[in-house]
């Protein structure tokens, strides 16, 4: 599973302005439902990812991490604030161009793959939607890149293990050669050896194509490996943004982050 430089031919059309930022989020709030049933899933979140950056989102389960990614990709409509991708302000709709630039790997690979579409269909359709040629070769290459051999090409999701499905989802996200990848727990279903291969692949892709990553993971070692900056979320809010060096030294200014860092040092039976 090595990433070589002629991976995908055409690089993306100039992704937006020269501002140098891939993602800018300011004062983003996202909610579900209304009235008494309203859930404020994200409260006034702000962060910036320069092009080529790798940014981690960690924090409490249910704190709004996936919701931020879903709002960016246009899957949640009820939000306010400002979101810019490659210098362009996002409205309510996302066109095909947007998905050429921005792809997402979902937390739940089972739900994100159509049960009656084979691996081949999933990848070929994404490729042809984005007008790529030599689809056959590309499908094989994508499968090899994520450590699944061509023998998995004609399988259906129910015939794959959890980690194999996750890798199909990663291959699908890589298919259109996006410039920004939103990764929601991309390796949590993978054993650590396959995880290492996927993380190395992501490192290589970033080096070759200056990709930008926004990654959610509860695994601080994984986030620490891939990201230079980490935002910590609790109960809908970003409570702290810290550089990875601080995280490594368990230095943080917020008590929740401190708690998270200490707890991550290992399960202790009580």
């Amino acid at each position, binding site marked *: 599973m090595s990433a070589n430089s002629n991976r995908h031919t055409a690089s993306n059309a100039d992704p937006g302005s020269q501002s140098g930022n891939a993602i800018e989020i300011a004062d983003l709030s996202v909610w579900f439902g209304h009235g008494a049933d309203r859930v404020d899933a994200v409260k006034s979140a702000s962060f910036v990812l320069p092009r080529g950056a790798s940014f981690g989102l960690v924090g409490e*389960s*249910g704190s709004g991490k996936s919701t931020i990614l879903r709002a960016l990709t246009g899957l949640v409509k009820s939000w306010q604030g400002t979101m810019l991708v490659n210098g362009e302000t996002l409205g309510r709709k996302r066109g095909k161009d947007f998905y050429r630039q921005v792809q997402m790997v979902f937390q739940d690979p089972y739900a994100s793959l159509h049960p009656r579409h084979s691996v081949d269909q999933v990848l070929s359709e994404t490729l042809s939607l984005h007008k790529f040629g030599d689809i056959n070769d590309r499908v094989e290459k994508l499968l090899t890149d994520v450590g699944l051999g061509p023998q998995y090409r004609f399988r259906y999701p129910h*015939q794959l*293990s*959890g980690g194999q499905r996750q890798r199909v989802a990663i291959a699908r996200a890589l298919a259109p050669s996006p410039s920004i990848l939103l990764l929601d727990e991309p390796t949590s*279903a993978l054993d650590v050896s396959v995880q290492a291969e996927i993380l190395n692949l992501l490192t290589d892709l970033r080096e070759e194509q200056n990709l930008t990553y926004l990654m959610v993971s*509860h695994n601080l070692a994984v986030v620490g490996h891939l990201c230079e900056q980490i935002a910590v979320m609790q109960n809908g809010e970003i409570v702290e943004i810290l550089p990875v060096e601080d995280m490594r030294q368990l230095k943080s200014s917020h008590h929740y982050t401190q708690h998270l860092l200490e707890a991550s040092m290992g399960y*202790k*039976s009580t």
Partner: protein
Amino acid sequence: MTLLDVENLCVKFPTRSGVFDAVRGVSFSLGRERLGIVGESGSGKSLTGRAILRLIRHPGVVTANHISLEGENLLQLSERQMRKVRGQRISMVMQDPKFSLNPVMRVGEQIVEACLQHEKISRNAAKLKAIEMLEAVSIRDSERVFNAYPHEMSGGMGQRIMIAMMLIPNPQILIADEPTSALDVSVQTQVLGIMDKLVRERGMGLIFISHDLNLVSAFCDRVLIMYGGRVVETCQADKLYEAKHPYTQGLLNSMPRLDTPVKRLQVLKRDASWMDGDIASDSDASGKAIGRSV
């Protein structure tokens, strides 16, 4: 005391290119303990769990010398008897939690149904119990979650709801397939504490499938390491770091570490001989289950 004994379990699938042997002769026994299963993606961990519950669907074929639950061979039970085993004696938390919940039924109702099936209590009492279960797995706003649909839950909330549901029948054995992979560490500790308590206080047997080697090593009593459909090594959990099999060693070396950053992670060079070669085992742990005193 042995709760479950599995001998020579095989799962096969016919495919275009011949029969695919997904599980190839897995044997182990489980006492009132926490047994971890780790291993390669696609090595047959989930299928092993499903096969014990006889949940492998056509065209898959399951064979074994026996799968004995307290001496009773599950392979010889009728489908009706088997449903009882699944409902009451062995529970399984599936790897895709949201997929195992009914998408058009409110979360709370599903838990209430599970309570009512198991216990003769009033609907109101069942509701209170359901809320209590949700709070036990650290769900912040249990009332809202009770009235919500599965798709309105975050990944980790879905996992916790499934764990709560599976514990309601007070099973003798819980098979938990990646039950905490979407949980932040502090919630994870909480949820593990619940399972741990059931093992210690009620003598439940726990099969804990996970990719988190540190966690398995700290939390479990024994660990099976699977590769290519076989158990290639068995060891005591606290000795996982001294594992002998090259696959296990490779796994340990490919983990990223917060305190020692590296530019590239070490990857495994998989060796064809691991498919059929020797099985490493530490004699202490491989034999019959070491029962935890309860």
